[in-house]
Structures are given as C-alpha cells and as structure tokens.
C-alpha cells in the first residue's frame, strides 16, 4: 500500500509513526512545536503528543543537541532538529565530542540512540551563511553515521531506521527536496539504512552521487540515453558507512566512474569515494575516476553565480560524455 507524498510529509509520517509506536521517542528544536517546524516536518505533532515530546527550544544549538545526548544516555530516543546545517556548527561539540564518543569512551556501557535531523545544501539564494554542506566534516568523525535520503520513500525509511538505531545518526535533508513528490510505502520492508541503491541501470559508466544530486544524476542519465550513453546511477543513501560493494560491482561492470557531489571538491566526500574505488577497482577502470563537485567557494547570493558554484544536470551530462570519450581514446591507444 503506497501513497504519493512530498518529502517533508514522508518525514512527518515517519515521526508520527515512530512516536506512536514508542513513548521514549521525542523531538526538540527551534520552532518544532507550536510553529510546526520550519519545513513542516513536525506539523501536527505538538497537538498530538504534547510539549514534553515535542519541545520548542531556545536558540541554543549546542546545548539542546547536548540535551539530546544526555537523554539518549538514559534510554530516551531523541530526534533533534537543527533548523539548518549552518547552525549545526554551533552544535558540533555535542555531536563530535559527545554523541560520537561517549559509547566508545565508556567502554561500551552506554548506547547513543540519537538522531539529528538537519536541512542543508544549497537552496535558493540564501547566501553563504545559509547555503552550505558539512558532510566532509561529519564523515571524518568515527562513531557517527550519516544518512542522506534523496526520495520521500527513503526519507520515511531512513528516519524510522535512524530512530530505531542505537547509534548516533545524522540525517542530512536537502532543502530543495522537501517539496519533491514520490510514492511512499509504509509497510514494505526497508533495505538496510546504509545500503546504496542502483537508481538506473546502465553499461557505459557509473555515476555515484547522493542526496539531491542523485536525482540530478538520474535526470542527466535520461539525457545521456538519448545520445546513446547508458549511465548507471548509484545513489549512496548513506555517507557513513558507504556501501562500497554496490559501488564496486557497478564500476566493475561499466569500467568508468563519475562522482557527483554538491559539496566542495577539496577533501570532500567525492575525494574519499574516488580514492577508495580507485584502490579497489583500479584494474577495472578504463579511465581515471572523475569528480564533479561544488566549487571551493562560499556560496554567492547572486542567483547565476550560485548556480555556477554547484554541478547542474547539464554539467553531469557533459562530464559523462567526456569521460566516455576519454575511455574510448585510452582503449584505442
């Protein structure tokens, strides 16, 4: 039984279902209660579950995230909403020094069933302090897990799975995905939260991406098909851990790898993906793995400039064509 939902609605249902199923689940953050959440994700929950389980907080990101850490230590299942990832920089002490390390430092005595939900990415002309990504920082923290749902179905599944998990999980939600539509099945069995998915099958090259750019990669693949190039699109769904087996199987089939990310290129997720898959699949590759990424630049306000700082679907098409030509040339030589 599936129904069509917007991405934010899928998250909202996941919250509702998790809160109804387990009294230890609660959510807190700026304007999550009375206001209903700045992207409507917690809409209706305050009226249904009351203020102790849907808590409006002061603007104190580090401390209310740390509150979640403390509550998780004694078996509650907090879902902390940080209004945008830009404000998460203030909460990194609670996330990195707290949530990620306490289970380890305690010698495994404590679990950390904490979820931190964060809208992020580049939306529409929000300028540098409201338009960035932090996956590069979070990926480098042992003890964390990072889920990056690109579809309403994954938003539903991965939030439910994150709440059920005993490890701290950051759910990176893209601000431009909240109003995208998709079929959501509440009953179907979910794949493991960290499993990558092949969104489109192809033989000529593999495009590995995640979050909003996985959807752009699918658009690009449709375009490429018209030109006779069959791209396989792998949506990572999780950045920590990464499902290397699914990626490697695809690369070994197509022999070409293009990595697409919205985040800055330097020392970003793409660098890790390129390095690991090159190490693992070097002898399968017909050409060097290529990265298409955001520029190493704070996001400009100007709309045209903003668009120029991140890969667009047309850029993915061009990069894929170039990679296929390069690989042909290498083979011919």
């Amino acid at each position, binding site marked *: 039984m599936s129904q069509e939902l917007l991405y934010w609605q899928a998250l909202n249902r996941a919250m509702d279902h998790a809160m109804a199923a387990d009294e230890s689940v*609660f959510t807190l953050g700026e304007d999550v209660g009375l206001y209903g959440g700045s992207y409507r994700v917690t809409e209706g929950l305050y009226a249904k579950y009351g203020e*102790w*389980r849907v*808590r409006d*907080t*002061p603007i*104190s990101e*580090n*401390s*209310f*995230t*740390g*509150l*979640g*850490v*403390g*509550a*998780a*230590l*004694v*078996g*509650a299942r*907090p879902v902390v909403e940080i209004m945008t990832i830009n404000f998460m920089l203030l909460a990194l*002490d*609670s996330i990195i*020094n*707290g949530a990620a390390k*306490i*289970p*380890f*430092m*305690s*010698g*495994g*005595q*404590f*679990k*950390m069933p904490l979820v931190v939900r964060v809208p992020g990415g580049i939306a529409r002309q929000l300028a540098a302090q409201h338009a960035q990504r932090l996956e590069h920082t979070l990926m480098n923290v*042992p*003890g964390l*897990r990072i889920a990056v749902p690109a579809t309403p179905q994954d938003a539903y599944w991965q939030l439910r*799975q994150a709440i*059920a*998990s*005993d*490890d701290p999980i950051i759910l990176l939600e893209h601000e431009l995905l909240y109003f995208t539509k998709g079929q959501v099945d509440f009953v179907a069995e979910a794949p*493991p*939260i*960290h*499993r990558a998915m092949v969104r489109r099958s192809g033989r000529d090259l593999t495009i590995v991406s995640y979050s909003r750019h996985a959807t752009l990669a699918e658009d690009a693949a449709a375009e490429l098909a018209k030109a006779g190039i069959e791209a396989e699109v792998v949506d990572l769904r*999780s950045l920590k*851990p*990464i*499902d*290397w*087996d699914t990626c490697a199987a695809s690369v070994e089939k197509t022999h070409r790898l293009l990595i697409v990310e919205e985040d800055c290129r330097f020392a970003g997720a793409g660098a890790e993906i390129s390095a690991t898959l090159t190490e693992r699949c070097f002898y399968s590759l017909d050409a060097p793995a290529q990265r298409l990424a955001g520029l190493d630049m704070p996001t400009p306000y100007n709309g045209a400039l903003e668009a120029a700082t991140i890969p667009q679907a047309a850029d993915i098409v061009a990069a894929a064509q170039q990679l296929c030509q390069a690989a042909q040339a290498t083979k011919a030589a």
Partner: protein
Amino acid sequence: MDRETLHRMLRDMLLCRAFEERAAEEYSTGNIVGFLHLYPGEEAVAAGVINATGPSDYIVSNYREHAHALVRGTPARQVMAELFGRTTGMSGGMGGSMHMFDRERRFMGGYAIVGQTCPISIGIAYAVAMRGLPEVVVNFLGDGAVNQGTFHESLNMASLWRLPVLFVCENNHYAIGTEIHRHSAVPEVFKRVAAYNIPAEKIDGMDVLKVHNAARQALDRIRRGGGPQFIECETYRYRGHSMADPGTYRPAVELKAHQAWDPLTTASRELEFRYPTPDELAGIGRDNIKLFADHLIDGEHAVESEIEDMRQDAQKIVDDAVQFASQSAQASMDAAWNHLYQSHRHEVLI
C-alpha cells in the same frame, strides 16, 4: 547528624586523598600517563554531596572525577585500573582519567570539555521529567565552566522546564591557571545563576557538613518539584590543574592559608565533637593539619585511633587497587572496535 554518616564521609575523604596521592606517585613512575587532574583539597564537596544522593540519582562530572566515582561507590580497583588503561577499568581502558563511566551506579561520566556536562545533565533530567520519575541529576562543574555558553544555555532550559538538576559548582578559584577575578566579571557564581531564576547559594566547600546539609536540602526541594537548584562550594585544590601543571601561578601564602582549612581536618573535628574537651577544640587553630596529625600520633582518643584505622584502611584499599590494576590485562584492540558502534543488529556494512 548520625555517627555512621560522619564516619562514612570521613572514610570517603580519606580514601579520595590517599587514592589521589597514590595516583600522583603512579604517574611519576609512568604507570599512569596522559592528563591527570587530582582532587586533594576538594574532598568535602564530593563526600558531602554524593552522600546526600540516593542510588537512583545520576551523577555527571568533569575531568577531575576520580573522587566522585569513589564516593559514589565504584571500587577503587576499577578506578585505578582505568587510570592504568586496563581492561578491568571502569571504562575498559578506553576512557582513562578524564572519562570514567559506571552505568550500574548511574555515574554518567567524566567529560573533558569544560561546560559539556551541563547539556548532558539537563538531557538526562529531561528524560527523567518526561517519564515523571523522582530522580535527580547532580552536575559537578568548576568555576571555569561558568563562562561557557553551555552553562548559561543549560541553566536557562533547566529553569524554563523545571528540570530536576542539582548544579554543584566546585569553585576552586582557578580556571586552569587564571584566578577567578581575572576570568569572571562577577566572581560570585551564585549571583550569575540568579539571572536564570534558579535558587542558588554559596557555602563553605571546605566544610563537609555544610556541604552535605546544603545538598540534602537542595535535593529535597528538587524532589518536591522545586525545579533546578544550585550550590556554589568554595574550595581549593592543593595541586596544580593537572600533573602537567606545577601551579606556580599561585602565591605560596595563598596555598598555605587554604591548606590550614583542610576539609579532612574540619570533618574529623566534627567527628570528635562528642569526645574532645572544649580546650582541645579551642586549641584547633589555623594549623589544622598539624593538629590532626598530632592527634593521630598521640592516639589518646578512641576517635583518633579510629581515624588512624580509617587512614590505614584507605591506604590498604589503594595499595590493593594498584596491585589489581597492575596485574590486569591491557585493553585490547578487539574491544575498542566492539565499543565503536552499538547497533550491531543494523550492522550490514562496516
């Protein structure tokens, strides 16, 4: 106050003192490595407060927490073994001096980021309040922590939602090496707390009885629904901030003056209250430690010999703890990997 409680608190303080002095020795010989922040001088706070808590209450502490764990009841063996990095340590050798945890005793950890204990404490308290339980969270913090944003953010939320937290400020007047008048525009911590509509009082942290009474009353108020409470205990550490710190920034006269008000001396004087003559009590002047030692040497009072027995018992416990620690197995890499992630049932990829 009953004799049993007095004895227990003195035993706790003697154990803490003996433990920490021995830890310093073991540090010098290289058995303990890393950062080691010792507690001598502040024993009255740990003993006074924690002896006022019940087994269902929670303790959250900072990186100067060995004494808090010992008073809470964690065996000295496990505390010492953690300092030695052994598998039998409180945290299996993964945490060390600054990160001691004892889930069974609701000892919720030692944290090494100044001020980090505040959000964690209000989080535990939030879960307690959400479930309507009669438990209280005791949060130890130093005077250095009161200048962190987390302190103010957490007091605000604790007060807003009337969370069951007892904040205990161990004000030893130094944020590492910076004296309180140089680090706080308002050096009276309790006054700053008043801004958040939280009852706060300042007490003599060198007097275990005053600390104990204040903590008991505050815990009662919290359990009756009075919301968070705050006590500022004025105390003093005899050593540097850590073993890496010789404490040279403190005037010798200041250190000496505070040692004269040794909390151990104050406590043992209370214990003797029903035994010594008024003359002897009057004779207790500023040099309490010397007088205390004289009493022990003289052994003229039953209490004094009891105190000596306690001192020896504490020493035996510490000796045994060191022996236990040194004979325990080193922590293993297998265990380290096991502790990293908890959700093994969701584990498919790592």
